[in-house]
């Protein structure tokens, strides 16, 4: 996948200003690439118009996989492969299998969720993170605007919109 390289960055000092700015900038037709903030800003994903994560679906499916694997494994081992009588119960004594089935459900749904999250968030160990502005890990909120995504608007117009929305600085950033 070709990654875009030219960005305009709006720098904001205050989260309340940022939240209004996001609405204002999106209202003027500019598409925002991403907003980087030093801490979670409540309501930011809402104003950015992000859809709810589909991660719960992944969690459910991996959970079902864990449950199926655990039940198959236990019934196969205890009833067919090496039948054993434990506590005077039948070979395939379902209540005995519940704790392991529960644990496997939780384990696989947790592993699956973390894995899917890492993949979809591009957090693989060898990924090269793109740092837009180091201050987004300290005290500034950075709004990144992808120029390739906003080709209908000219550069000065975007800069003007950002400044009007309360950005203390407007910078350009290009990646190799």
């Amino acid at each position, binding site marked *: 996948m070709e990654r875009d390289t030219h960005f305009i960055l709006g720098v904001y000092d205050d989260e309340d200003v940022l*939240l209004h700015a996001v609405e204002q900038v999106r209202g003027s037709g500019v598409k925002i690439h991403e907003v980087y903030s030093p801490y979670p800003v*409540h309501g930011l994903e*809402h*104003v950015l118009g992000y859809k709810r994560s589909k991660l*719960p679906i992944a969690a*459910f499916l991996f959970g079902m996989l864990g449950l199926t694997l655990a039940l198959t494994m236990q019934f196969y081992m205890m009833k067919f492969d090496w039948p054993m009588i434990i*506590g005077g119960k039948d070979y395939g004594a379902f*209540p*005995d299998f519940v704790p392991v089935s529960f644990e496997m459900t939780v384990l696989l749904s947790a592993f699956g969720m973390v894995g899917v999250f890492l993949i979809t968030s591009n957090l693989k160990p060898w990924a090269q993170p793109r740092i837009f502005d180091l201050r987004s890990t300290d005290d500034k909120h950075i709004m990144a605007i992808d120029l390739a995504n906003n080709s209908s608007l000219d550069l000065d117009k975007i800069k003007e919109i950002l400044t009007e929305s309360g950005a203390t600085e407007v910078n350009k950033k290009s990646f190799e």
Partner: protein
Amino acid sequence: MAHHGEHHYNLDQRFDFTASIKKSILTVLVFGAILLGIGVVLAITGGNHEEGAEAGTHAFHWYERLYASIWVNNVFFTGIAIIGVFFFAIQFAAQAGWSAPILRVMLSLGSWLPIAGVLMLATFFVANHDLFHWTHSYLFDKNDPQYDKIIDGKGAFFFWPMDKGTFPVFYIARMVIFFGFWVFFFNKFKQISAQEDQLGGSSHWYKMRSWSAFFLIFFAVSSSISAWDWVMSIDTHWFSTLFGWYVFASWFVSGLSAITLIVLFLKGKGYLEMVNENHVHDLGKFVFGFSIFWTYLWFSQFLLIYYANIPEETVYFVERLESDIYGPFVFVNLGLNFFLPFLVLMTRDAKRHGVFLKLVCTFLLVGHWIDFTLMVQPGTLGHNGGIGFMELGMFLVYGSSAIFVVLGALAKRNLIAKNHPLLEESYNHHI
């Protein structure tokens, strides 16, 4: 939400307990009373076919079933009432802000407590031998052929400091002390809350938090012991170390369901306008989470007994699972109290929309009532139990009386603790 706008809610709103609401509740009450009457008549006329009269075992009388039915509802509705007070106290101990507008709904459930206490005590005095095997004095008489060494060993828990088999002073004292303190704390909370309405400021909140902490300590002990006393002692030989928690979990889910239903009912009538889908979502999460907690305890109790396979322990489940009467209800119990809330309330949307919650909470109230029926009936009625007209009628009579008392108490004061310092936080609650 992003914008912390000004909120203008009517905080002096009062619930109007209108004649039409009263009429519907009384209709249910009358309907329940009719069912109960039919059930009693059926029990009297068809009751003497039992073989119990032979060989010295005691004959079954129709009124035993009536007593057991009363006892189930005593325990069940006492639980819902005390959970209202408990959940209220939890909000202060946890310094929770989201729940500020629905605090009085929780507390109002406690208004059933004094009545529940009187009913419980009265039922015990009338029905003691018919409900509680350990009340028979011959069990403690070494010269009697029916002397029971195991129950004799447990006797002091009921009869101390009197002689075993006489008057259960310790047992009665616990019942009186528990209800006494619960009602005391309930009144204390009501009183502090009323002062806060008049005077405002945050000092009442701090006061409430301290009283809540004391109540929670008392409740931690009393809820467990009351479960042993009122439910577990029916099966006098048998014991389970997590029984207190198990009963508490059943109470908690029922209480949360009742709170959720009353909140949704009030919202449907146009009250509690600041309570939005975020607050409802939180209530839904409690109902969902504690349904699973109940299942966890139910299963933990079952699995250990099943696995260890010790006769004096397994008898509890043998009596239930292998019975034609109770066997099916064990699975109805698990279906209503675990699978239904687990599957229906799993998604976020289901917890945020009243339709699903109303459905699940109603079924949960019935489900946990069945749970208590399953705890009480096998030990008191044996194979003469079951859920018929009498049980359903009694449930409706108790339920409609309790809701009448609770809504009546709710209508007496402002619906919202208007000077609660965390109200603003709850307006902006967003999850």
